C-alpha cells in the first residue's frame, strides 16, 4: 500500500513549463511516478520531454486521467491553482509553493475539508513512497522501501532522519512532508491516521518543530487511537520566542509552541522523543528489531 502517493498516482504538474516545475516533474517521472500532464495557461499543446501540457487542469483530468497535482507556481498564483485543481476533480493536492497568504490558505483549508480532499503543503517537500511514486522534491536516492512511516513539517531534517534510518538498514513505507507554513492542508493527525490504516507501515516517526499545537494534538491522538508505535523528534529547543525560524509556521508565540512543551506533551502520551536525529534513528532500529523478533 503506502499512503498519499503510490502506483495509482497519475500526476499533473501545475507549472511544468517553469524551471523548477520542469526539473522536479521530470525527476519525479525518473523515479517511476506516472507524470501524465503539465498545466500552463497559454502553453496547451506543447510538451515537456513527452509530457503533454494543457491550458487547464480540467483538460489534464479529462484527457489524461490525472488524479494528483503538484503545484509549482509562484505563491501569488498558487491559491488559484489549488482551487482550479480541486474544481477539476483532483483528489490529492501537493503544494510545493511556499509563502501563500495565510488568509487565502484558511479559505482553501476549510473548503477542501468539506470535499474530502488530501492536501500537503504549502511549503512542503512532497510525498515519497519508495519504489512506487515520488511527488515533490524529496531526493528518492537516499531512501529505500520498508516499514517506517515518516511524517514531518520540515524537508532537509526529514532527509537527515531518513538517511540515518537507511544507514541502519531500515526503509520507509511513505515519507510525508506536511509543510512549514502556518496553515497546511494536512495535520500530523491526518497523516498518522492514514499510517495507522496502512498495511505496509509498521512504525511511524513524527518530526515536529516549534510553533502551533499540531504536535500536542498528535500526542493525544496517538494515545487514544494508534496501535502502531510512534517515535518523535522535535526541533527548535534553542529557538527564542517571537522569532520566525525559517518556516513561517515555526514561531513561539508567548509561551505556546515551544519544543519543550511539545516534548512533554508527547511523552505524557507515551511517545518516546529522541534528542537528536541520530538517536531517533537508533530508537527506531531498536523497536523494529524488537518487532521482527
Amino acid at each position: 500500500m503506502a499512503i498519499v502517493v503510490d502506483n495509482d498516482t497519475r500526476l499533473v504538474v501545475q507549472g511544468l513549463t517553469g524551471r523548477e516545475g520542469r526539473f522536479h516533474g521530470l525527476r519525479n517521472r525518473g523515479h517511476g511516478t506516472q507524470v501524465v500532464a503539465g498545466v500552463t495557461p497559454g502553453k496547451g499543446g506543447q510538451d515537456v520531454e513527452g509530457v503533454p501540457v494543457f491550458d487547464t487542469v480540467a483538460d489534464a483530468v479529462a484527457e489524461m486521467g490525472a488524479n494528483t497535482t503538484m503545484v509549482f507556481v509562484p505563491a501569488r498564483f498558487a491559491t488559484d491553482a489549488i482551487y482550479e485543481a480541486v474544481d477539476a476533480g483532483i483528489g490529492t493536492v501537493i503544494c510545493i509553493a511556499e509563502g501563500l497568504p495565510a488568509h487565502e490558505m484558511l479559505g482553501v483549508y476549510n473548503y477542501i475539508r468539506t470535499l474530502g480532499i488530501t492536501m500537503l503543503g504549502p511549503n512542503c517537500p512532497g510525498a515519497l513512497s519508495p519504489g512506487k511514486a515520488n511527488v515533490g522534491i524529496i531526493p528518492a536516492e537516499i531512501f529505500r522501501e520498508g516499514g517506517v512511516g515518516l511524517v514531518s513539517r520540515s524537508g532537509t531534517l526529514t532527509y537527515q532522519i531518513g538517511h540515518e534510518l537507511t544507514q541502519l538498514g531500515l526503509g520507509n513505507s511513505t515519507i510525508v512532508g506536511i509543510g512549514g507554513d502556518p496553515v497546511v492542508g494536512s495535520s500530523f493527525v491526518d497523516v498518522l491516521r492514514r499510517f495507522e490504516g496502512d498495511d505496509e507501515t509498521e512504525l511511524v516517526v513524527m518530526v515536529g518543530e516549534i510553533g502551533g499545537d499540531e504536535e500536542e494534538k498528535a500526542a493525544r491522538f496517538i494515545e487514544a487511537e494508534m496501535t502502531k508505535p510512534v517515535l518523535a523528534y522535535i526541533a527548535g529547543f534553542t529557538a527564542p520566542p517571537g522569532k520566525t525560524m525559517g518556516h513561517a509556521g515555526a514561531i513561539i508565540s508567548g509561551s505556546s509552541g515551544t519544543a519543550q512543551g511539545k516534548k512533554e506533551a508527547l511523552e505524557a502520551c507515551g511517545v518516546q522523543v529522541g534528542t537528536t536525529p541520530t538517536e531517533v534513528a537508533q530508537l527506531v532500529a531498536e523497536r523494529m528489531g524488537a518487532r521482527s523478533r
Partner: protein
Amino acid sequence: MDLYEYQGKELFRRHGIPVSDGRLATTPDEARSAAQELGGQVVVKAQVLTGGRGKAGGVKLADGPDEADARAREILGLDIRGHVVRKLWIERASDIAKEYYLSVTFDRGAKKPLLMLTKEGGVEIEQVAAESPDALARLHVDPLAGFHPFAARRLIYAAGIDDPDEQRQILPIVTRLYECFTGSDAMLCEINPLIVTPEGEVRALDAKVTVDDNALFEHPDIAEMQDLDAVPPEERAAREKGVTYVKLDGEVGILGNGAGLVMSTLDVVALAGGRPANFCDLGGGGQAQGVVDALEVITADPQVRSILFNIFGGITRGDEVARGILQALGQMSISHPIVVRLDGTNAEEGRRILAEAAPANLHVEPTMLEAARRAVELAA
C-alpha cells in the same frame, strides 16, 4: 509585520472604529505643535514594537504644549526592552470609566479566526485567560460561513456586557474589527483597552495589529508603513541579501540548508555544550554567492568564535556545495575556524573535494553530532 500603535489606529479609523484624535511626532518640537493643535490635555505615547512601555515610562500625560515638549524629551531615546523610542504618538487624553479588551486573532490550531472579548481589559490577555477564563468570551468564525452579526451579539452577551448603550456601540466595532482583520490580511487585530468613557462613549485606546508578511503584496499601503529602522541591523543586512537569519546570543555561528535542519543543528550544538550565535538558512541552494552572503552576515557578529556548516544534500548535490564553500572562502578572508558536515547526495565526492583543497581553518566531520562537538570545542 507588526504595526505601531499609530499605524494600527490609522487602519482602525479607515474601517470606522472610533479612536482618539492624535498626531505623530519625532521631535519635542513636533510634540509641542501636536499638543497645540489638539488642545487640552494630551498623552505622549512611545511608539515601539514591544509591550510594557507604560511601566518603562513610555506613556505620559501632558497638560498643554510646554508639558508635551518636556515629556517628549523624556521619552524620545528611551530604551524599552531593546527598542529605542524614535517616534511618539500625541493623542487627546481620554477619561476612562471602564477598560475592556477586544481582538481578532488568526487561530492556527483551529484554522479559523478567533474573536475574544472581555470586560477585564487593560492587562495582558494571557493573564485574563489564565486567571479568570470565564470572564473571557471566545468565538471562532467559520471562514466558509463568513462573519455574520450574530457573532458580535453572542460575544457581547457571553462577555457579560449588559449595558444596552455599550452593546449598541460595541456591536459595529466587532464587525469592523473583523473587516479590518480580513481586509488587511492581519494575523492579529487587538484593542486593549477598549475604553468606556464616563459619558458612556466606547473607543479604542490602543491598537496592536500584525499583518501577514506573505500578503503584503496585496496591501501596498500597509507595506509602506514598514519601518526598516526597527529591524535589528544584522537581520536587515541578511534580509537584503535574501538570507534567512535570526540573531542569537552565543558563539557558534550556524548555517545549513532547510529551516528544520538548522533548528535541529542549533539544538545539537546546545546539547554539545555550546551556544548558537544565530539561525541561518541557506534555503535550497549551496551556490557560492549564497554561501558568501551568509558568511558575511554571520561573521559580522563579533561574538562568533567558530562556524558550523551543516548541509544535507538532497536536490542540492554535495560536490556542488563543496565547490561553493571553497569558492566563497577564496572570495573573502575569514579567520574563524569552520566545521563542515556534508551528507546526502554526492557527499563523499564533496568531502573529497574539501579534503584536497584543505584550507587551514576548515574542518570536515562525518556526522552532524561530531561536527557540532568540534565546532563547540573550537569556539571555547
